[in-house]
């Protein structure tokens, strides 16, 4: 296995050649925020929050593989301000009411909102009219909260390897659909996996939403990324 040296914000780092930049940075205790990326499933590079500058040019760290001598800027004002904007845009684009959400405290979007001390988004609230699909036997899909990261599409498949989730429409009408046939008799484990994979509260396993009370959840206790950073 070949190891390479690379630089993030002036700090010399080392990792295996070809490793996903997000992961390689993590190994060196550097946190690059992500939303659509999820360990173990193919990256998509759609939320753009992990954007870094490589030799001055923007690239998403989740879709970039490290190479020898790569010179990366990440925690610079331009990018931190961009990342805050992405979080704010997501809040303004959908309908996110944290206090009533089953995922509060385990939500990556909410946690990033805290990390970037978001107050009032500087983007117009769109208040879109969106559905809540409660008729799937095992899952509840709340389109109001969906940030369209595509994790579920990429990561969740039934026993035949078929997808349960797929995109519908495009642009600002984009949504994630659930296949009524494939989703009918999924296992409890798969339903749980889908809920855990969802960064927000858009996929909820029925009857299990509040197993751990709000206030005692992951990001209630520690800010996002703090386990990575030194």
């Amino acid at each position: 296995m070949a190891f390479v040296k690379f630089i993030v914000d002036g700090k010399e780092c080392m990792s295996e050649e070809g490793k996903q930049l997000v992961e390689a940075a993590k190994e060196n205790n550097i946190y690059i925020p992500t939303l659509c990326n999820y360990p173990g499933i193919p990256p998509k590079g759609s939320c753009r929050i992990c954007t870094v500058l490589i030799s001055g040019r923007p690239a998403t760290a989740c879709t970039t593989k490290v190479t020898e001598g790569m010179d990366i800027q990440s925690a610079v004002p331009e990018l931190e301000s961009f990342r805050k904007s992405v979080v704010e845009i997501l809040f303004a684009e959908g309908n996110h009411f944290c206090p009533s959400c089953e995922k509060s405290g385990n939500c990556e979007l909410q946690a990033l909102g805290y990390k970037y001390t978001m107050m009032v988004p500087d983007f117009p609230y769109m208040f879109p009219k969106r559905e809540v699909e409660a008729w799937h036997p095992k899952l509840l899909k709340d389109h109001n909260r969906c940030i369209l990261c595509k994790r579920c599409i990429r990561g969740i498949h039934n026993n035949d390897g078929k997808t349960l989730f797929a995109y519908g429409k495009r642009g600002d009408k984009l949504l994630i659909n659930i296949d009524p046939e494939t989703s009918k008799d999924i296992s409890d484990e798969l339903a749980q996996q889908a809920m855990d994979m969802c960064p927000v509260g858009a996929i909820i396993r029925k009857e299990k939403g509040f197993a751990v009370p709000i206030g005692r959840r992951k990001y209630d206790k520690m800010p996002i990324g703090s386990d990575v950073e030194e």
Partner: protein
Amino acid sequence: MGETVHAIIRNYNGDPTRLMDILIDIQSQLGYLSEWTIEQIAKSLDIPKIDVEQTVSFYHFFTKEPRGKYTVYLNNSVVTGFYKVDEIVKTFEKEAGCSFGRVSPDGLIGLFSTACIGMSDQEPAAIINEQVFTRLTPDKVKTLIAGMKDGKTIEQLKGSSYGDGQNANPLMKATVKNHIRKKGEVIFSGDYTAGDALRKIKSAKMSSNDVIDIVKKSSVRGRGGAGFPTGMKWEVARKAQGEPKYIFCNADEGEPGTFKDRVILTEEPKLVFEGMTIAGYAVGARYGILYLRNEYMYMKKYLVSILQDMERDNLLGTAIGGKNGFNFDIRIQFGGGAYVCGEESALIESAEGKRGEPRDRPPFPVEKGYLQKPTVVNNVETLCTVVKIITKGHEWYNTIGTRESRGTKVLSISGDCEEPGIYEIPWGFSVNDILKMTGARDVQAVQVGGPSGSCIAANEFGRTLAYEDLATGGSLIIIGKNRDLLKDVVLNFAEFFREESCGSCVPCRALTGMSKLVMEKIVSGKATVSDIDRLVSWAPIMKKNRCGLGQTALNPILTTIKNFRHLYDEKVKGNSEIINPAFNLAAATADYEAAVKN
């Protein structure tokens, strides 16, 4: 019905990567894609139903509901708006008995609007059942609708006066006009005979490396907008691992105001196909695919017959030109109505039967493209140019144009001028030269390179069209002084990008819609200076989108804020930052009032 569906699926061997063709053919025969049809497709291809649906719902022209025996798609582009399109809309609605977005109660006529259909020099135009109707007037609309009510065929509705040149070809019979106003030395020089470049390769015993070498020496750059050196692209694809390799000709032509590829394909289709073949020879590709926008469906029979002619003449197929081992076949892939599919990786996704979502790069298509094989994507005009370079030599080519921009550019010119149409000119002409050539007077602004380009004012009309100055994929929309630039142009473009974003990237998906909202606020006179500043502050955010669409989607707004700031200032004049002028108390409390009343 079932038989039709299954026959079509069999036609494509039940191959899920041919889903686009399956959907297009079924819809063309049955009018729409019902739940039942989608289920059948899913079962036959052994993919989940939502997989089929995600492709269906991505494209503008696919529909799950019937859209009428006659389906009208009226162009809603900026230029259409210059020709009293409101009256056309009203007449359509009155005569058909339904509003736009709907089908008449008897199911006879459906009225829909659509983004630029590539007819900006003959607006207002509409597509009706895959055929194009141009220069619509209220009277023409009345006659059309009366004809529909009489049950006339689409051929009868078209009448018998066809356009010039090959538009009148018996296989096309289109009423579309070419409007070639100026022929240049490269594309429309009129001295091309099919097979010229292939014969040259044979007589001069050129290897594929020699071809790439000449293309590099000609320094020809891509005509699709990005201006990438063609020779370099071919060389990388040639060296890339993987078989078979593919050549795509990009004829998606979705940039509003652009229609040059339509005219090239109409008049010089063999030049285009020979260009693909030469690229195939140079790169070592076995197959070529012409990705043609759905709006140009009316050309299908004509182009298919041209391909057959070329096969018959041994200009395509196996052992081309008697050269053993040189095999190349071309097929046509239609799109489904999505501007983003002009982006090369989205185009490839679409040709694979999927949603037209741009891929993340690297890897680039030249390494992993169509079906993960090395793929070259070139614009129609680029491929034509190469044929001429091979035939006449790079020395000849290098005498045309400027030092950094060699050759000619085919321009699509539309808007407020006397002679809109096609102009092939050497690079290096100024905007002023062009305005003079086209008989444009009282010009307020020129939109260079379509909405993704820039909107310039008179102080920049001295600039020249060239890669080193004003680079353009080839469209110029001339905007007269009588136009309301913000309302008639910028707002229309903002809506275009909102509609056409694929939705994958957060900034592109959300800010296209949000910027349109702010723009509406500005146009209605209810915005403040901080709204303008806000739009400007979104520029660096959009630059981080994945593809060119998102990266340029704010250009109509940003370039007009830069070049026509006074128009914005007038709109916000006197509006205080302390109160929100757009706030409407009555509307905000309407729900409450209604509840209290009850």
